[in-house]
């Protein structure tokens, strides 16, 4: 049995690796196509970003066009981009001239900090709220938590973010509304993301708690004579964590799109912010690189979630 579980894990990893390759190919082609479908003259927009609108002239745009091969047939441009992708060459930013990979390394790091902090904050909120709601299932703390969760999840991240700015920056003046550097700047964007995440995961913690506490194995563990602490530690936590961890894969979708919106709103120099700017500037290599890295991060984290689920729940590992 142990061997078959290991084999299953190996199959799972191989599957995710295939998925990563597929995602890279799809994102590569899609981002290429989408950038070229944007209205306006691409060369003109790039020239504007590079030299500023004042120095902009038709000649500058033509130079850019020739330099980047934008006058070439589309198929040729696509083949060129995919060829470089295979060699892990993401090219240079059209605006700054720096290698895309270097810029992304910095921005991705910042974004991971933000996402990680948001996730930690959401756990810190969701677990206690979920436990309290679960223990008082059907009574007012449970209903209050449900109402709060529906409201927070229904609000788009930019509305939550604006509300937090108004409250903490404008009215109370405790935290800066934008910027980067210390935990003070990190707190509001992370809190915005965390509230949306916690809205969903607190409900899952609650349901999971109710299910485990009512389960025959929980009752049997008590009857065996185990002390309450041991019952919860050995039979409650692991079983209760399974649905919560499984949900993380879904929550990532929220986190990835949330990062784009929240970083723009709070002017936080992460990968989402970079993506929005690259789109304005038609910085094609940056757009393609950013989308690619986001897609791959998504696959990688989903793989970690799969592994965590398999480690927590032997039934999933054997499936």
């Amino acid at each position: 049995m142990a061997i078959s579980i290991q084999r299953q894990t190996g199959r799972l990893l191989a599957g995710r690796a295939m998925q990563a390759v597929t995602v890279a190919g799809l994102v590569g082609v899609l981002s290429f196509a989408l950038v070229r479908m944007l209205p306006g003259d691409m060369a003109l927009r790039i020239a504007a970003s590079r030299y500023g609108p004042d120095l902009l002239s038709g000649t500058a745009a033509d130079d850019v066009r020739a330099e980047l091969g934008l006058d070439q047939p589309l198929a040729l441009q696509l083949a060129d981009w995919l060829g470089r992708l295979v060699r892990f060459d993401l090219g240079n930013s059209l605006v700054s001239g720096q290698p895309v990979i270097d810029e992304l390394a910095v921005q991705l790091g910042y974004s991971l900090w933000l996402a990680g902090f948001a996730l930690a904050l959401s756990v810190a909120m969701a677990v206690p709220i979920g436990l309290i709601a679960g223990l008082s299932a059907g009574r007012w703390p449970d209903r209050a938590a449900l109402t709060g969760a529906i409201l927070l999840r229904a609000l788009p991240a930019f509305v939550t973010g604006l509300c937090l700015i108004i409250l903490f920056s404008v009215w109370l003046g405790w935290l800066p509304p934008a910027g980067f550097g210390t935990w003070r700047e990190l707190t509001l964007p992370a809190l915005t993301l965390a509230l949306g995440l916690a809205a969903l995961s607190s409900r899952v913690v609650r349901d999971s708690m109710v299910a485990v506490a009512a389960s025959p194995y929980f009752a049997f563990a008590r009857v065996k004579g185990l002390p309450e602490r041991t019952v919860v530690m050995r039979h409650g936590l692991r079983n209760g964590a399974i649905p919560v961890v499984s949900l993380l894969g879904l929550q990532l979708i929220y986190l990835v799109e949330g990062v784009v919106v929240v970083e723009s709103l709070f002017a936080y120099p992460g990968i989402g912010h970079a993506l929005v700017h690259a789109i304005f500037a038609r910085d094609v290599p940056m757009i393609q690189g950013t989308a690619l890295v986001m897609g791959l991060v998504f696959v990688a984290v989903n793989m970690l979630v799969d592994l965590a689920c398999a480690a927590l729940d032997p039934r999933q590992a054997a499936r």
Partner: protein
Amino acid sequence: MTASLEVDGLTIASGGHKLIRDVFFTVRPGVPLTLLGESGSGKSLVVQAIMGTLPAELSVTGRVVLDGKDILGTDRRALWGRRIGLLPQEPWLALDPTMRADGQVAEVYRHVRGLPWSQARQSGRARLRELGLEAASRRYPFQLSGGMCQRVALAIARAAETDLLLADEPTKGLDRALRDDVANGLKAEADRGRSLITITHDVAVARVLGGKVGVMLDGAMVEYGPAGSVLDSPRHDYTRQLLMADPSAWAPRKPLAPRDTVIEARGLTKSFGGVPVIEDVDLDILAGEVVALLGPSGSGKSTLGNLLLGLLRPDRGEIRRKAGLSPLRFQKVYQDPPSAFAPHQTVRTAFADLAKRHGLDWKRFVPLFERFRLSSGLLDRRPGQLSGGELQRFALCRVLALEPAFVLADEPTSRLDPITQREVADLLHELAAEHGLGVLMVTHDHAMARNLAGRVIELRSAEPDASSPGGVTAPA
């Protein structure tokens, strides 16, 4: 150390309504006590009263005396696993799904008896080995059969070595061979000098255990005495009924007159995850006959039935239904009646929805309800407020309202107590005779199969690790 337990004048009430009235018995080492009775007779409340796990809204009076000390009303948690052990109902649900078998036994040694982990693990494996579970000790519950789970639970009970052991419906959901296995296991515990209380609706278990038997009806003990005299010369009417309700005591039935084929299968094959479950099975069901499908758990009985109904797709083979019949006329009665109804709506709503969906008149249901002795007051209850027998009869009404030509009855009586079981069996047989219904009844009860069915089909293969797939062995 040994334990003796005396229960005297035990009365449990909810509001003004008495659920248990003046129940009394004594248990001594080596003389097991079996409480017999159908579901709803209050047997499980007695266990909860001894364990101290009754819901707070119930009031309890009387005495529960363990070794000379009245423990009723005291907090008994400190006694659990030390003086009182419990063998749970349906151990495949009571074992932690994410912990290996040996860990669940060893933790008793570690956390209840305070041994260091290394010794606890050794002792845990030793208990499993005694019960023939050496190979299973590193497996998770989902990798074990029902019978193996039951033995793991027994190993846990042995590890605790409590002097008093309570077994709550230990054979629920197990087939006949496993049932005898469990009963013998419990008997061995009693012979080792433990005081044993077993709650069951299975007369066969009471016979194997011997000792004393108490028969419960509607919360009262109607008969109490040595097993031999209660089971062989019962004095109370209800005890007689209970004994007669056992399928082995059923009177032979008038043979049915089967007609043309309703559904036939040729060369059916199905595997799950690479493991063949059904291999090359041919089957015919005729109108107006009852066919029993027998076989141990895991032999593919339910799979075969679901293939016939088209709920599963076969890997190979084909299924031919009698021409001109709508698929709606091939119906299924489920094993667990409560889970076949939506819990939040009344039965009346469920039937109203059925009428609306299929364009039926409510008048269609009325004679069915009468036939099944379901009074209209029951219609306004939710599934949780009805007994398993009542719900199963509603489930039958629901299926029959669609005028089926073929019904797959998947262990329709295994969750019912003996008397209700007999009623449902009688109904199925009558319907086959009167309406020319073709019935395929999945069961693991040989006596019932022989009594009810014109033909018996048996599938082989047992444990999940056995390599031989299910196939028809003995069409009788």
